[in-house]
């Protein structure tokens, strides 16, 4: 299958961890569970210091429709509620849960049910109650994507297994180790929105995953496995839709505007768990990798597991490790503390050694236009970064800075080593601020 405009070919470095089968991490001594784990309205905490919680019990209720509940990842006691570093780059309130070791489910959880008896609304409600958010990184609440407004007809479901971000192999391993569960989950999404065609899109650099998924999809109606060109950011929602269907999501629009729903393979797996067994989203696969870690692994970790415990589980840091990134090296956020913990959107932790850390000097733009050639959104990052540097945020808005998906292609190719994504994030923040002010 084809491709989209722009994009880059970075070194993927996936061989560090793509042969490592998913390993379950033993319960750590403490879990730091963030209350805000979704895009949209922050959930409201409903536990307090000293409360006993059961595994799967709701500890924060949705703060609105575009919000998802947060569940206790194990049974234990809430030791404290305090501000901790959130891997997305802010300090946020979180509950510190000390496990009691029994790992005991709350009432009503972990019970198998026959999903054939459920209608579309029942499935959607179970997904909403399970606290599902997009596990690809953006953490957008899943049930919102499954509720298109009347008049918007969705006729294609894309299950995103592209995993174009360098280093990360969590989705890759999930497709190898849990293929039939992913397909079951995808079929549940298809039933909710009533589509017949499901495309599982996988980049060609994962032939084993394409083979395994094809094997399991063989007997099922409606599934098609597509091998995608290897180009970053193939796995970005709008780019993937264009590659597969040549449909363009309008600026500021959503995939549902062109009749498409995209869900990550991890989210499909979580939907299977939530609907079939009433297990809310309390664990996920995290790739711990990079040349700064002793044993790169794909770890099935509880939500709230600290980076410190994850790194210890993977044999610890090497002596010259200089940077910890939550997410992949292209779109991830550098972390300053190992108290940062796994959230629903944490797909990996990349540890880089000192000599691998890129230095962005912030020299002047030489207007070579390389960033324009690679921007998958068809923007002019060169002009945008200059506007933002000179605090001309209105102009940046006119040049559609809000369409930027922060993929980092422009920064990757810039010969002046300009911190492009940092400029663009600033610009987006300022445009949002101005829009809020204007009401």
């Amino acid at each position, binding site marked *: 299958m084809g491709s989209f405009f722009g994009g880059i070919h970075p070194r993927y470095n996936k061989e560090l961890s793509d042969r490592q089968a998913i390993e379950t991490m033993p319960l750590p001594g403490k879990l730091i569970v963030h209350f805000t784990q979704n895009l949209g309205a922050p959930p409201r905490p409903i536990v307090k210091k000293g409360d006993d919680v059961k595994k799967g019990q709701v500890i924060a209720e949705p703060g609105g429709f575009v919000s998802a509940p947060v569940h206790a990842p194990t049974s234990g006691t809430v030791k404290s509620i305090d501000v901790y*570093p959130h891997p997305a*780059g*802010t*300090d946020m309130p979180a509950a510190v849960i000390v496990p009691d070791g029994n790992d005991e489910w709350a009432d009503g959880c972990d019970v198998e049910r026959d999903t054939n008896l459920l209608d579309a609304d029942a499935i959607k409600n179970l997904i909403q109650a399970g606290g599902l958010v997009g596990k690809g990184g953006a953490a957008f609440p899943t049930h919102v994507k499954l509720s298109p407004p009347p008049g918007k007809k969705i006729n294609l479901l894309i299950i995103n297994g592209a995993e174009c971000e360098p280093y990360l192999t969590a989705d890759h391993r999930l497709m190898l180790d849990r293929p039939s569960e992913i397909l079951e989950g995808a079929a549940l999404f298809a039933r909710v929105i009533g589509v017949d065609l499901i495309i599982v899109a996988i980049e060609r650099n994962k032939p084993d995953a394409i083979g395994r998924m094809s094997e399991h999809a063989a007997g099922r109606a409606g599934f098609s496995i597509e091998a995608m060109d290897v180009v970053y950011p193939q796995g970005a929602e709008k780019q993937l839709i264009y590659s597969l269907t040549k449909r363009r999501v309008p600026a500021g629009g959503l995939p549902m505007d062109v009749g498409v729903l995209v869900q990550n393979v991890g989210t499909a797996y979580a939907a299977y768990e939530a609907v079939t067994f009433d297990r809310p989203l309390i664990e996920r696969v995290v790739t711990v990798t990079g040349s700064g870690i002793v044993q790169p692994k794909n770890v099935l970790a509880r939500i709230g597991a600290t980076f410190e415990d994850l790194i210890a589980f993977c044999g610890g840091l090497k002596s010259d490790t200089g940077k910890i990134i939550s997410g992949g090296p292209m779109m991830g*956020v*550098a972390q*300053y*503390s190992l108290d940062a913990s796994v959230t629903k959107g944490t797909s990996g932790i990349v540890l880089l050694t000192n000599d691998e850390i890129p*230095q*962005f000097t*912030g020299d002047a733009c030489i207007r070579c236009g390389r960033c324009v050639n690679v921007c998958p959104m068809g923007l002019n990052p060169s002009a945008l970064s200059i506007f933002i540097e000179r605090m001309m945020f209105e102009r940046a808005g006119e040049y559609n800075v809000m369409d930027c998906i922060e993929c980092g292609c422009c920064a990757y190719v810039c010969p002046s080593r300009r*911190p492009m994504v*940092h*400029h663009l*994030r*600033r610009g987006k*923040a*300022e445009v949002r601020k101005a829009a809020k002010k204007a009401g």
Partner: protein
Amino acid sequence: MLTAIIALASLALLASFGLAMAARVFAVEIDPKVEAIEEALPGANCGVCGLPGCAELARHIAEGTAEVDACPVGGEAVAHMIASIMGQTFEGGGVRSVAMVMCNGDDEVAAKRFFYNGVYDCNSAALLFGGDKACSYGCLGQGTCAGVCPFGAIDMLPSGLARVNPEKCTGCTKCVSACPKGIIKMIPSDRTVHILCSSHDKGGKVRKSCRVGCIGCQRCVKAAPEGAIEMEENLAVVNYEADIPHTVAESCPMNTIVIRGPGIVEELDTENKAAVEGRA
């Protein structure tokens, strides 16, 4: 040859006659007051008066739709000059206000959580965990205020702190709105006792992140005259309307209280001194 010279000369005569007539017929009358006022205004076109530039303000003053002291930047001196142009008298009032960065936590005394090497700009730095300082209220030292100051009145000290030069500060307040931490305050220029801290954190947390932060012990509140220093959420704040003796500074266990202002000779270490004087 001769024909060409005569032809061009007569053409020139004709054209100059035309121009001279046009200048008379279409003459634009400029109020000499507007020109004089514009000359008197600082000419930074900063926009603080609310008008698009100094020329526009000059027109408004000449027409009487703006007061003679409408330029907050020019202050009293400019107001006097404009008043004499307008044939009015200006009674000087009050003390001009200047900006001050309410943080003294430079790299020597304030702890950092990580090494930041992104865009040199405070608003950009604040996007990642609110900045690299362990204190979430502290000056980020990335020079945004110095960049927006139209008068070059803010120095970035090599120790990682912004510092307003009260001599050059005109009180335009551009830096106040540019600072993402909101720690630049406008104060009367004749005051000398300052509490250079903006942290509302509790004492224990302040001690961990900064050696000159206000820990909220309230000793200065007791040492100062009543109502001269007040507590606002774990932070002692100077009431700039009150007179405070310099001895109050001795009561502060953290050296957060700084004596600075007109007539006070301050000791800066050599590096910072060079930076301040190099730009003066």
